[in-house]
């Protein structure tokens, strides 16, 4: 089968640093591949190779069956890139940025202007279209950056940590957009440091560390390996701790832990358990100040998969 994009055994070294140590990544047409990894894992390096910005030292990569080194020019007609660091021009306006890219993509100026207006409207930037990008907020910049990578209607789009530094509401906006892209049949490669984000968006997740894929599979498969979700309860009144603990333990059927004073956590297997905990707490009239269901953090995922924490990398 022809993959929308495919990387096989990519190796990239910077002096003594091995950024990529033989990495494999692939996605079917219209799928979203989540590449999950801590700082320095090699996410950006892999994206840059797939985007023809960097040549691999070994291995091969192709987009739509075209080699990223030999057919780089053709590959560039198929891809859109939103880099980790803002790749729009601060001094230009939103419109000027998008029109320029349209012209570079061989659109006629009138078509480039129409396309720019269409995208700015689609990303809720019409009002700011004539303002210099340096006056934009972080969220607006990100949106413009995303719009810029869509001017040429690419088949494959690379989003390198598109939500890092955004507040939760803005993050949701980006998620909505990624889903819309996938619905339109665009293949997306998304890098992230959050399991939650990969889980929310990706069809397949590749976890990478030190330039290697250490786990690969659907979000469901991955969660089965690293453990599902965790419920966290903080009763308003510490006197209720024991009662709450009993409920949580009964529903989850697991040992309850207390990572901090007045807080209880327990791993659960599905959303149903959470609902039941909520109902039972209400029935027994145990008020809570905090009640949440969350996925393991990247650090917890890494600990499960590798036996070491992400922060040990520096050591």
């Amino acid at each position, binding site marked *: 089968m022809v993959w929308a994009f495919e990387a096989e055994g990519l190796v990239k070294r910077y002096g003594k640093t091995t950024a990529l140590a033989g990495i494999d990544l692939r996605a079917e047409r219209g799928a979203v591949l989540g590449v999950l990894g801590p700082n320095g894992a090699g996410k950006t390096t892999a994206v840059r190779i797939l985007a023809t*910005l960097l040549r691999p030292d070994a291995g091969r990569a192709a987009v739509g069956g075209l080699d990223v080194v030999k057919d780089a020019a053709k590959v560039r*007609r198929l891809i859109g890139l939103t880099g980790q660091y803002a*790749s729009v021009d601060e001094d230009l306006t939103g419109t000027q940025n998008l029109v320029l890219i349209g012209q570079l993509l061989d659109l006629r100026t009138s078509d480039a202007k129409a396309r720019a207006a269409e995208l700015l409207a689609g*990303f*809720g930037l019409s009002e700011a279209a004539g303002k210099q990008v340096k006056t934009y907020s972080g969220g607006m910049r990100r949106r413009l950056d995303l719009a*810029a990578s869509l001017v040429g*209607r690419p088949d494959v789009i690379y989003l390198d940590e598109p939500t890092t530094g955004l507040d939760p509401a803005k993050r949701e906006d980006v998620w909505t*957009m990624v889903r*819309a892209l996938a619905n339109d049949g665009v293949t997306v490669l998304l890098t992230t440091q959050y399991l939650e984000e990969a889980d929310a968006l990706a069809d397949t997740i590749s976890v990478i560390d030190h330039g290697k894929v250490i786990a690969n599979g659907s979000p469901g498969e991955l969660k089965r390996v690293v453990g599902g979700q965790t419920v966290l309860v903080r009763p308003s009144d510490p006197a209720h701790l024991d009662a709450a603990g009993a409920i949580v333990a009964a529903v989850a059927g697991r040992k309850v832990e207390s990572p901090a004073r007045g807080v209880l956590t327990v791993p659960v297997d599905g959303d149903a358990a959470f609902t039941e905990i909520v109902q039972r707490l209400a029935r027994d009239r145990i008020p809570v100040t905090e009640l949440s269901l969350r996925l393991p953090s990247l650090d917890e995922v890494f600990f499960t998969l590798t036996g070491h924490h992400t922060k040990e990398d520096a050591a």
Partner: protein
Amino acid sequence: MTALAETGSEPVLTAPARIAPRPFGLVRHSLALAKRSVLKTLRTPEQLLDVTLQPIVFVLVYVYLLGGAISGSTEEYLQFLLPAIMVQTVMFAGMATGVNLNTDIGKGVFDRFRSLPIGRSAPLIGSVAGDLIRYVVAIASLLAFGAVMGFRFHTGAVEVLAACLLTVFFAFCLSWAFVLIGMLMRSPGAVQGTAFLILFPLTFGTSMIAPKETMPGWLQSWVDVNPVAQLMDASRALMLGGQLGNDVLWVLVWSVGFLVVFAPLAVGAYRRRT
């Protein structure tokens, strides 16, 4: 963002239509990128200080410190100095192109350009060509200030324009050498330092601030072969009248020489750097 959902059945973000490549890509793309560069310059006028204020300071210093000593009067000295210092000003503007590019290519915008189906050299050509606006601003502000101080042309508009164009062409061709340095060096500071090492003997080893006859012999021989000295002489002749000689021809030969040597080297260094 809600607008995304409202677009309904028609996929706004993407559609099957593929844009057909059009001919003369490199020229069109370079022009579009040159326009970007011009827009950026106009939007951040403070970046023009080095080509507006700085030369004016030079003129004031030379005219009032040296004018009396060299020409007997500041008025007279201004006539001698201005056509030559115009050359120096525009050359320094060309150096700034190399320094600025060194900072710019590290930024995300250049990554985006590289991911687009355009010639690899287009962003470089666009930036260098777009900086021509800085030369124009430099010349205009210097001549305007000169006029206020009492500088007068002694020739016609055609000659004056020819002096300006010759200067711009020479500086543009030489700027590729600074672009090459910009591509080879790590930091903007290093680019500037190296560029100064080249610019000083070129611009000061001339009759810019004092007549050649007053210099020691070895320096006179350098002035005789220095293309910048020839350009300054040509600029004086074209603005003030007098013997033009072969200077224009030599300047053109040197310019083309710089262009054909340094432009390909700079483009090559830019490709290797990425």
